[in-house]
């Protein structure tokens, strides 16, 4: 005869193993989905991928179509977006965490709004960009307007991630610095930012990766679907990889579906290499910590 305790333990062990199986199958399911997607893209696009695909301009003839202008447009836009958004986002986070009075209603209101902004649909930012940067500031349909719009889009994410990283800096470290007579700004540069850097980097890279995949807000501000020259300045008109890919998938010819798949491979490689850089940088900082 089983005692109550034995029965109880048996039940708990059973529950434990059931949950283990459920969670494991969830992750297997996600990985299978991802692999299917990758297989689909690669099997279609790999044959179209070549050096001339990367260096050619788009064309209405599938055999001559290339991705050069979209790739250049993406690199320009993302480069500018990083330059605008990371300093602004980290600066805002530093202000909110280190300078602002945490208890004032004004800071609380700011915090709440930043969190809410992180959830606003990207198309709304596109409309804002159209109204402010394209029309009001007369940047027209330029790379600059696109990068500024994307900056607005990812700024809340960078701020929130950086705030979390800054919060994780142990206060004894800050006190240790202050107790030596070191000023707040010097403490931020000497202790807080180096300690928070891995977290800030991770958050920023995730946000920038999101910006790289965005098409909707850029379509909204009027990024072109067909560009046959390489942009030379931030005020040139432009297109980006997701828009170019979208453009190709909407063509009726089957060849363009393959070209779109090749374009997706290029986008994926670009994204993964950016993430790789981020991981290398983060590990470099973390090694310095340990």
């Amino acid at each position, binding site marked *: 005869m089983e005692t109550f305790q034995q029965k109880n333990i048996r039940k708990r062990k059973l529950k434990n193993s059931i949950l283990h199986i459920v969670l494991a199958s969830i992750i297997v399911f996600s990985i299978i989905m991802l692999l299917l997607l990758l297989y689909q893209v690669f099997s279609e696009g790999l044959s179209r991928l070549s050096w001339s695909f990367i260096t050619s301009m788009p064309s209405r003839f599938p055999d001559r179509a290339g991705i050069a202008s979209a790739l250049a447009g993406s690199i320009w836009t993302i480069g500018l977006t990083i330059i605008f958004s990371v300093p602004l986002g980290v600066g805002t986070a530093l202000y909110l965490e280190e300078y602002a009075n945490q208890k004032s209603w004004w800071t609380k209101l700011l915090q709440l709004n930043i969190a809410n902004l992180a959830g606003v649909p990207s198309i709304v930012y596109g409309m804002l960009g159209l109204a402010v940067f394209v029309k009001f500031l007369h940047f027209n349909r330029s790379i600059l307007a696109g990068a500024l719009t994307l900056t607005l889009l990812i700024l809340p994410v960078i701020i929130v991630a950086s705030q979390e990283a800054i919060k994780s800096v142990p206060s*004894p*470290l800050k006190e240790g610095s202050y107790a030596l*007579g070191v000023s707040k700004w010097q403490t931020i540069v000497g202790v807080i930012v180096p300690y928070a850097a891995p977290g800030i980097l991770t958050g920023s890279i995730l946000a920038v990766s999101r910006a790289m995949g965005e098409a909707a807000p850029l379509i909204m501000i009027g990024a072109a679907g067909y560009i046959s020259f390489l942009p030379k300045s931030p005020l040139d008109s432009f297109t980006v990889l997701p828009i170019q890919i979208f453009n190709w998938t909407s063509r009726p010819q089957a060849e363009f579906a393959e070209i779109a798949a090749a374009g997706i491979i290029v986008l994926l490689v670009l994204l993964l290499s950016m993430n790789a850089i981020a991981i290398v940088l983060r590990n470099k900082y973390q090694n310095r910590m340990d």
Partner: protein
Amino acid sequence: MIEQEENKQQKNDRIKSRLILNKPKNNEESINTSKENIKIECKDIDFHYGTNHALKNVNLQIMENRITALIGPSGCGKSTFIRTINRMYEHVVDTKIEGTIHLDKENVLAPDYDVTELRKKVGMVFQKPNPFPKSIYENVIYGPRKHGLKNKGQLDLIVERSLKKAALWDEVKDRLHTSALGLSGGQQQRLCIARCLAVDPEVLLMDEPTSALDPIATLKIEDLFQALREEYTIVIVTHSMQQAARISDNTAFFLNGEIIESGLTDDLFTKPKDSRTEDYITGRFS
């Protein structure tokens, strides 16, 4: 119950006898509390954290080149008190302080007293070792470098001198450029002391500096204090009455934000004037 009481009494007697035996210090010198030896004079300090009246009319004289121990139960205000001396409370919102703290005859609480200058003169070591996640070398020169010293030769000299003073040089001289986090707890704490000494302070504030350390590391740091006493004025907050008895010249007993009694350590432990002091040092409450 009675047995426990007896045990405590015995323990107490033991502490007292050790006190008297282990004191190699020059008593005539300690008794000399004439004006020119006062390093820090705190007058009528009242301190509020929001609505919490944390320090009530605290008066204390801290003697130059002496070790002053602050004892008392948790939450009695002793840590709060030493944080007023280097104005660390300024980093906490919603605090209010009244009274004066004179360091060498200058009121450090005056708004025009520069907090950077104050903290260069009054260093602080914390409860848990808090080395920066940088190399040993970088930890020591952090302060001097932020205060504008760039000369490599001078920085090297400061590192060697500070680490020697903190009795850490021999243990780390071959690995100055490895991470400070690889050191043991006791070594980390001595590194924090070296970091403090690197900015050339006159006063060292220690907030329970050995409470996170094992007995051997504690002993090393206590020995260090005896050496540092020659050059610096030391204020130490401690939970351990034995420690206060072992190392300090003067002791102040805090209770509920007030100083109940202060004076020579030997007197305070052997013939306390206030019954509450006696209760505390005999372990009747903690």
